[in-house]
């Protein structure tokens, strides 16, 4: 929300001035900057500020920054900060790794019971896992609707529509939201209604969104009659492995399987599958300055996939929240030139 509302660039310097480098995660720096300023986009929704947490729980499956981020609040509020240290660069998901992550998750329980003042209700956990699983199945259905030609939904729509899958997973309301959305998308597919009228090209967005430029980018692609049909980012909230009968192991599998903590080989295989499923004409990689963990162009992957898939790529240099690191004119020219290249093929 800080990124999409373009508040981030104003508050990041406050965190920088308190010792958080401008080179680290700008989710972290913008959130802490907003806290230091006592400001939040939540005020627009009638909340007085960021709600104080009783406990902070992290998982390093995406990066270490989330732990550093949450530890700041734990120090500010004098509350516990506990978490799971997931191995990274995973190839195959071997059982010992799953077992380790599942045990780390179970080990959170005593602290959480103490904070909550009540024992863990396994039946309730299984029920929440069942609802989460249903939510994620529907979200997957929403994203996979874009495999249709023309695609009824774009990556840019996905970055907004993913909200319930991120923060309301495990609730009935999220399920109802995605049931309605999926039904609408099925209608659009049946009627041949595309999100980009006159869709000429289909491309993939690899890496983080540029949150403060969603409208500008989606408008440019719309004008170029090019649909960004899919992304690793939105797919990262698909958790096929969630298992109501075995919640801890299911969560461990689900949160180890996500793209960002996998090996280069596993990532490459994943994008190859996406290229076939979504009938891609090209891939755009966002080299996100403050998110090295989710900038997948830095170890020659684009060049390897060009050779394997026979489709071109483009690298855009920018950032997820810090618009000081984004050159609008450069990005715009690069994208237009990329599409002009697709026209020549």
């Amino acid at each position: 929300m800080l990124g999409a509302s373009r508040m981030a660039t104003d508050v990041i310097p406050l965190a920088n001035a308190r010792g958080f480098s401008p080179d680290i995660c700008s989710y972290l720096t913008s959130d802490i900057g907003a806290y230091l300023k006592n400001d939040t986009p939540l005020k627009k929704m009638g909340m007085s500020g960021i709600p104080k947490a009783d406990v902070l729980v992290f998982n390093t499956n995406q990066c270490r920054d989330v732990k550093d981020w949450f530890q700041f609040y734990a120090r500010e509020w004098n509350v516990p900060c506990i978490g799971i240290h997931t191995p990274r660069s995973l190839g195959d998901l071997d059982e010992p790794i799953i077992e380790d992550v599942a045990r780390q998750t179970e080990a959170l329980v005593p602290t959480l019971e103490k904070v909550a003042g009540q024992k863990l209700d396994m039946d309730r956990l299984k029920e929440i896992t069942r609802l989460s699983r249903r939510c994620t199945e529907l979200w997957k259905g929403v994203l996979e609707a874009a495999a249709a030609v023309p695609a009824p939904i774009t990556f840019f729509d996905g970055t907004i529509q993913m909200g319930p899958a991120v923060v309301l997973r495990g609730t009935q309301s999220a399920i109802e939201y995605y049931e309605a959305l999926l039904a609408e998308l099925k209608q659009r597919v049946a009627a041949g209604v595309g999100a980009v009228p006159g869709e000429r090209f289909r491309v993939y967005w690899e890496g983080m969104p540029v949150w403060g430029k969603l409208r500008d980018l989606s408008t440019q692609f719309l004008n170029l009659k090019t649909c960004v049909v899919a992304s690793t980012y939105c797919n990262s909230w698909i958790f096929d492995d969630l298992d109501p009968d075995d919640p801890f192991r299911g969560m461990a599998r689900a949160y180890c399987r996500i793209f960002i903590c996998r090996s280069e080989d596993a990532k490459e295989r994943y994008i190859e599958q996406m290229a076939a499923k979504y009938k891609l004409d090209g891939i755009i990689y966002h080299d996100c300055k403050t998110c090295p963990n989710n900038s997948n162009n830095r170890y020659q992957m684009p060049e390897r996939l060009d050779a394997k898939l026979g489709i071109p790529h483009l690298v855009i240099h920018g950032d997820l929240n810090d618009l000081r690191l984004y050159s609008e004119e450069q990005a715009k020219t690069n994208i237009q030139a990329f599409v002009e290249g697709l026209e020549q093929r």
Partner: protein
Amino acid sequence: MPYFCGIDIGASSAKLVIVDETGRIAAKALRRSGVDYAAVAEKNLVEALASANLRREDIVRTVSTGYGRDNVPWSNGRLTEITCHAHGAWWHFRRPITVIDIGAQDSKLISLDAAGRRVGFKMNRKCAAGTGAFLEEIALRLDLSVSELNGLAEHSTKEVTLGSFCTVFTATEILSKIRAGDKVEDIIKGAFHSVVKRIAEMGAMDGDLVMTGGVAAHNPCLVRLMGESFGKPVHVPPDPQFTGAFGAALLAKENVHTHHV
């Protein structure tokens, strides 16, 4: 006879070319881009038409390119400078080439196959190192005009290395070289070498090398250093500063699909 116009409004200068139906250049005009792109486009057009004794109605179609491509009211289509420079360069060479275009604000590397189709392209990242703006900054630091750089670099006798990625830090580095007693001509050649290194980092140099843009037009010493670095000659088309505008004019003639974005 029908004529076709290409206009390339770059960060520093606005270039206009008019070609006839055979692709021969009938007229051209160049002036600083300034702040009013529509006005500078109009001035260039009026000047070019007058020099070739043409009327506005003789121009069948115009394609605009460069940073100001969206600001030319009478343009029939807008294409990026990547496509236009590539097309303008390929017109002269017609074989697999890598085009190295160094403009005021950005550098581009464009690979073309034997048929002139683009195989790939790279633009410099966000910073201005390796661009014309870098050389302008160096000239400013040395209290010279940009046009003096090449002549001085030709007289260099000693290797001076500038190591920084960053234009601003390089300027600081230059101050330390001056304090150390290095000669201005050696420092300028060091700056040229720095531009060559930034280009070398951008991508592979496949096929014959062709340099376009204002920096190639005014700095043959830098072009030569580029060739020495890559171990093959670097070709420069006629009027390299106009290559983008020329490509745009040719594309106007060929009436390819162009965007109105």
